[in-house]
């Protein structure tokens, strides 16, 4: 058995005996030099959890300041910084890495591969992230304060950022590089390493959703990089991409940003769709309804996501034809999304349902994501969006699709696969408590924000007229409750990692035809599939 420890600078030759069975390396090397998809997946998930708490703490500061009218805790600049950083941390630090972590853990297991296709690059994609967020979070301490121009970084406001400016830009570059490498790895693993017999249309839906998500990532992350590069040169090198005097246009930035930004929001929901499509059949004890349609629906959503970006910009003064086009294209997305919702419902119809924690979260997703989708559809109606735009109605919309949408799906996935990962069942009662607390508080937190928005409260403000006081207080109470509930999640994970009832290979023995991941032991062997399984 010869594990090769490659030291920088040394080693005349690298030999490696692949016929041996390896366990993980010992100590810190296992993590820092990691090439194993499970180890890297674990690191992604833990990183994501950390960032969820960091971003959540910022949200708590926002909600505390908004608890009542008047400025009590922070000055407006710091408030804007919190809004900006909260969003960047949640999107790029919590939700996206969580999905990549799940991809790392599950895709090789689901397609019957020994590991991800490009294991060293896999390590690179992960380890860039902590450094990127060190850069981003360090801006909290530099002169001029952290970026405070919203996560959308619109010029010219963003150009007023102080020393934080280049740090933020480079952090975004690094996150982009990480995402692109992660996406390449996913695509190559899926396209090249499927077990014999696993045709594309036999792949589990989580894998499918990630394949399409990865294409989206590769297509749009570079565009974001381009956009922020132009911000950088506008600020420091005299270019005038976004300045009218030189023939540029601030709106040009918005077009480029949202060309990234809209697909980005689907990047945060498609893997969630995949997860829910895994969980609902298992606990309905019935095959997924309309598998092919589900795949085509994801593909259509991904395609449409490239031609709707300007629905974030209805108030910029676009030509009428542009507004019409983007309204219609946006509305169309409801059709494939509807297909998904209907198919999930049809899967449950005449099934035999049980309500373990993953299923509870998936069901909560179904209802609450749909509510977020409905408000999205309302936002797509241009004349109405003239009223909704930049109010809390928008904030309510996107938190419904992101928190009980994306985040709940991630939690469902964790509860679904945690026993597979750790080999232990978790505390069901605690997990259910986490579910009920989260579901109740998330609605107390975000539902009143619809009312606030409709009544006319703009977003990104630290202080408001007294007519908005009551609902804001309700929302803040919901926020604190929701935040505290998340401590339960940590408790459940902690216990399951430490020990507990042994999980079987199948974990959820619902008699459903299962994917390949359930044919392995819990936890799976270090090299997932040493010998590729045969898929019939």
């Amino acid at each position, binding site marked *: 058995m010869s594990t090769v420890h490659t030291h920088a600078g040394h080693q005349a030759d690298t030999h490696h005996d692949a016929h041996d069975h390896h366990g993980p390396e010992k100590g810190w090397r296992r993590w820092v030099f990691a090439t194993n998809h499970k180890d890297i997946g674990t690191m992604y998930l833990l990183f994501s959890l950390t960032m969820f708490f960091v971003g959540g703490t910022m949200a708590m500061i926002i909600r505390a300041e908004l608890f009542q009218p008047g400025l009590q805790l922070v000055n407006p600049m710091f408030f804007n910084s919190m809004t900006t950083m909260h969003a960047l941390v949640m999107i790029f630090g919590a939700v996206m890495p969580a999905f990549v972590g799940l991809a790392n853990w599950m895709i090789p297991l689901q397609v019957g591969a020994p590991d991800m296709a490009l294991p060293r690059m896999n390590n690179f994609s992960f380890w860039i992230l*902590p450094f990127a967020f060190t850069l981003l979070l360090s801006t909290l301490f530099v002169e001029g304060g952290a970026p405070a121009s919203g996560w959308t970084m619109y010029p010219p406001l963003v150009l007023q950022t102080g020393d934080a400016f280049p740090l933020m830009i480079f952090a975004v570059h690094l996150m982009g590089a990480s995402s692109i490498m992660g996406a390449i790895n996913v695509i190559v693993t899926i396209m090249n390493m499927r077990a014999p017999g696993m045709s594309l249309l036999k792949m589990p839906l989580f894998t499918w959703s990630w394949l399409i998500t990865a294409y989206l990532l590769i297509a749009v992350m570079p565009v974001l990089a381009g956009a922020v590069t132009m911000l950088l040169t506008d600020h420091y090198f005299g270019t005038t991409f976004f300045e009218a005097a030189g023939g540029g246009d601030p709106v*040009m930035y918005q077009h480029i940003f949202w060309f990234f930004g809209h697909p980005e929001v689907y990047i945060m929901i498609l893997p969630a769709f995949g997860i829910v499509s895994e969980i609902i059949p298992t606990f309905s004890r019935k095959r997924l309804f309309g598998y092919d349609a589900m795949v085509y629906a994801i593909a259509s959503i991904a395609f449409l996501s490239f031609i709707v970006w300007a629905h974030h910009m209805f108030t910029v003064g676009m030509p009428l034809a542009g507004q019409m086009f983007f309204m219609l294209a946006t509305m169309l997305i409801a059709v494939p999304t509807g297909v998904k919702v209907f198919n999930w419902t049809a899967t449950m119809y005449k099934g035999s349902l049980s309500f373990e924690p993953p299923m509870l979260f998936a069901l909560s997703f179904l209802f609450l994501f749909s509510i977020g989708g409905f408000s999205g559809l309302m936002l797509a109606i241009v004349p109405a969006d003239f009223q909704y735009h930049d109010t809390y109605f928008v904030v309510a919309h996107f938190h419904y699709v992101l928190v009980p949408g994306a985040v709940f799906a991630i939690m469902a996935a964790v509860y679904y696969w945690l026993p597979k990962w750790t080999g232990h069942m978790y505390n069901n009662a605690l997990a259910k408590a986490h579910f009920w607390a989260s579901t109740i508080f998330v609605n107390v937190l975000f539902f009143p924000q619809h009312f606030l928005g409709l009544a006319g409260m703009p977003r990104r403000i630290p202080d408001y007229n007294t007519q908005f006081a009551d609902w804001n207080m309700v929302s803040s109470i919901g926020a604190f409750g929701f935040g505290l509930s998340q401590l339960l999640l940590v408790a459940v994970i902690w216990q399951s990692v430490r020990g507990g009832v042994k999980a079987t290979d199948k974990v959820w023995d619902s008699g459903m035809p299962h994917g390949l991941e359930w044919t392995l032991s819990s936890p799976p062997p270090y090299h997932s599939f040493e010998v590729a399984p045969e898929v019939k």
Partner: protein
Amino acid sequence: MAHAHTTHAPADKYYVPHGSPWPIIGSVSLFTTVLGAALWINESSSGPVLFSVGLLLVAFMFAGWFGTVIKESENRFYNEAVDRSFRMGMMWFIFSEVMFFAAFFGALWYARQYSVPWLGGEGVKVFTNYLLWDNFEAAWPTNGPGDVGGDFETIPAFGLPAINTAILLTSGVTITIAHHALKAGKRGMLNVFLALTFLLGFTFVFLQAEEYMEAYQHLNLTLGSGIYGSTFFMLTGFHGFHVTVGAIMLTVIWIRCLRGHFTPTHHFAFEGVAWYWHFVDVVWLGLFIFVYWL
């Protein structure tokens, strides 16, 4: 091949390396580089130093990482499946680069199609011109209604840029010849044509630098020349950077060829670089047409 010591090739299995220090070195070096750049921009004296150290580390990382991969490859650790992974990875990487360029081409297109005409009072923004930029008429090239950076002249398409186009197109031919030579096992021809390719590449970069000097010193065409200067230098500069990287990669591949690496059937690195080179070539055609010519 040329190497005597081969361990038995585990080609029946997908090779999964066990632990590698290079990615973390890569992360640290990227972090150092961008932190240095940020400090530099913020006018801290440690910036340039840190930035340079970072770049050196990046170079060290590439050398070490690719060195490891080359060794593994030469020792036949990689079976066909691994080779395919590399190919797919390279293709999608190139695609991501295409999208990076798309952002800048998009900016050029938007400026010419929308923002400049609008500032000139066309379309839905008549009042923009009437109230703010009364004496501005939309035209291309332009440095905008604010006459940012002062009067400038542009580089005519059918001067240096045309020559550069010819150079890059030729280099596309030479690398294809080199590839055929490699497949036919004609090592001499391979070495010559590959050398020719990267020499053409460096010539291109050299001429591009000449052009920039001309622009800055005689034409008053700078990054600060309004939207024309911005898009011109962003696109050509980003492309020039890619040519430089490509030419360096060609040089590395050439050295490997001299050392006898690659076989007629087994030469992913060569092909990866060739694809990259063609990509750089095609982007240039877009540049020539949309930046210089039209």
